[in-house]
């Protein structure tokens, strides 16, 4: 489909130029022009007030979704333990539900997991859809997808949120395809549009270099995944809710996967998502012994060590300590970035930190743009100095 400008209607306001994620619009003699590199994403069309941007795409009717009720959260559990992201999402779901005047439900799948329902209710669930079956004991894509499909078709939720964990990023797209709905991954913000009453899903795009706000107008439920550590949980002591029990109906022949074994690699130290202070290292650290010094600083501060993708690829720290676009998002009180240039993929993971300190030899490193305080210098000198001063 093609997009073009009606020059007579164009008032030269340049909203389209700003809206385009691909620099596909430029101004010529005060009028907007669509360039060859346009990918027909339609962002400019949405933003044009005089409706001067035209397309040969046929206008689509928005179906009547007034019967869609409920903000659902997939309650991820592994081995009987709830993943914190589920509670965080329940916190957000409560806000969204309030704006829609609807209720919050958690979906709990597993085997002998009913005791977890209480925790879900105490974190905001008005209802818990509980499906228990030995075949749900361990996560398997097809079985879980089937259970979700069953519940969605029967109860017709309005919104469905899942944590963007390894399970969530496996399950959500499969479910979205199965029930034919739009899905937005790794949202950093969720809100309800006051006019259309739809879910506005904001996420980093283009490797995190820009932010995009996305909506699913033509399908329900509106699905979104959110990374752990992005939303905040809200404890609601004394809240009451009910459990709705459903049975799994799936043919054994349809289940094609077997989990042969699950190996848990014991973490030597704490959980980055709960760390109050993080000392992180990037390319500038140089080697494993450089990271040992960072560890000493982390210890002196009572914090954890983390690193960028580069540090993981070089083998200086294990993969579960990676922070950034393809690693974890963290929200500590203090994030100290040592020898990290601040590529946007890394910045995306630390943006919710309360304070960011940057130490880098290069004064032009982009990390200084996102730090509260920065020191231009050699981390191999500055980090030991910091340790010295802390210990005295």
């Amino acid at each position, binding site marked *: 489909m093609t997009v073009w400008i009606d020059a007579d209607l164009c008032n030269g306001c340049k909203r389209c130029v700003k809206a385009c994620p691909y620099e596909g619009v430029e101004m010529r003699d005060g009028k907007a022009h669509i360039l060859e590199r346009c990918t027909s994403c339609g962002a400019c069309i949405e933003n044009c007030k005089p409706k001067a941007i035209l397309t040969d795409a046929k206008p689509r009717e928005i179906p009547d979704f007034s019967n869609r009720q409920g903000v659902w959260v997939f309650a991820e559990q592994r081995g009987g333990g709830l993943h914190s992201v589920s509670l965080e999402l329940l916190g957000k779901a409560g806000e969204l539900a309030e704006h829609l005047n609807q209720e919050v439900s958690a979906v709990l799948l597993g085997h002998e997991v009913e005791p977890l329902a209480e925790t879900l209710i105490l974190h905001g669930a008005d209802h818990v859809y509980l499906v228990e079956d030995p075949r749900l004991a361990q996560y398997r894509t097809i079985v879980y997808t089937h259970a979700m499909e069953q519940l969605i078709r029967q109860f017709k939720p309005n919104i469905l949120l899942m944590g963007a964990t390894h399970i969530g990023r496996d399950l959500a797209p499969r479910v979205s395809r199965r029930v034919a709905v739009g899905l937005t991954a790794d949202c950093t913000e969720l809100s309800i549009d006051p006019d259309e009453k739809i879910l506005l899903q904001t996420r980093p795009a283009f*490797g*995190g*270099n820009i932010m995009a706000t996305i*909506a699913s107008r033509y399908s329900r439920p509106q699905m979104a995944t959110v990374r752990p550590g992005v939303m905040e949980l809200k404890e609601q002591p004394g809240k009451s809710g009910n459990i709705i029990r459903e049975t799994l109906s799936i043919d054994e022949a349809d289940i*094609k996967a077997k989990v042969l074994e699950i190996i848990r690699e014991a973490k030597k130290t704490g959980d980055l998502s709960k760390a109050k202070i993080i000392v992180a290292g990037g390319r500038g650290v140089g080697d494993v012994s450089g990271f040992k010094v960072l560890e000493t600083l982390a210890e002196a501060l009572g914090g954890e060590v983390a690193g960028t993708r580069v540090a993981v*690829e070089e083998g200086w720290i294990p993969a579960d300590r990676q922070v950034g676009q393809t690693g974890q998002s963290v929200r500590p009180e203090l994030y100290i970035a040592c020898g990290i240039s601040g590529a946007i993929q890394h910045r995306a993971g630390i943006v919710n930190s309360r304070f960011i*300190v940057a130490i880098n030899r290069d004064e032009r490193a982009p990390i200084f743009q996102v730090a509260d305080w920065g020191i231009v210098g050699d981390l191999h000198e500055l980090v030991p100095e910091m340790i010295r001063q802390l210990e005295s």
Partner: protein
Amino acid sequence: MNIIVLVKQVPDTTEIKLDPKTGNLIREGIESIMNPDDRHALEAAVSLKESMGGSVTAVSMGPPQAIDVITEAMGMGADRGILLSDRAFSGADTWATSLTLGKALEKIGDYDLIICGRQAIDGDTAQIGPQVADHLNIPHVSYVFGIDEITEERVVVRRRLEDGFERIETSVPALLTVIGELNTPRYAVVGRLIAACGEKASIEIWNAADIGAKTNEIGLEGSLTHVIKTFAPKFKRQGEILEGASRESISTLLGKLHENRIV
């Protein structure tokens, strides 16, 4: 063993810089590359072909210039390449893209394994693999970092979890999404690259009609999610550079942290 690999041409988003004056992306001069995770997928496919026999077909959906990743895939060892290219495909979200790829794969038929990268560095959604698998009604395993066993009936893989891994067995045909940990991709071989650019190369370009796709199910029209607006991420920070020699600057820093009750 017939293997299909899904590959995507992406801008090298790891090299993108912001213009300090406008805060906008500097898009000129950004190299187009084969998505990194897809290289690992291709390497896995070609290695399997080398040990078990069979063929590897590389498939990509993109604008005409995406032919470069098809050629590169052939250079790395793919036997056949198919570029899905049509103006009608443009503006597609993951739903419309996975439908388009799904239809193409149905047309190719006869595959044992489909391997793709876990996610692309421009979209970063990690949705295409699982969505294509559901379209084709075949099982999939994501975050694969090890392929332990493969026969005509089943495949056993290791799937990365945040705190360890799982060993999963699933029936064939199946779709796998793979991560960088899986292997070290080989470089394209010059001789193969040259052959891939020649007349006899097994490269085809398919459009919407070729895969039997209707305009309202593909591209922007077929999408179920739409971009309402885009904006530059705001990083509102003080950005104060602390001056002085090491002892001084660190002392100032610790002072600030102490003031804010962090230390």
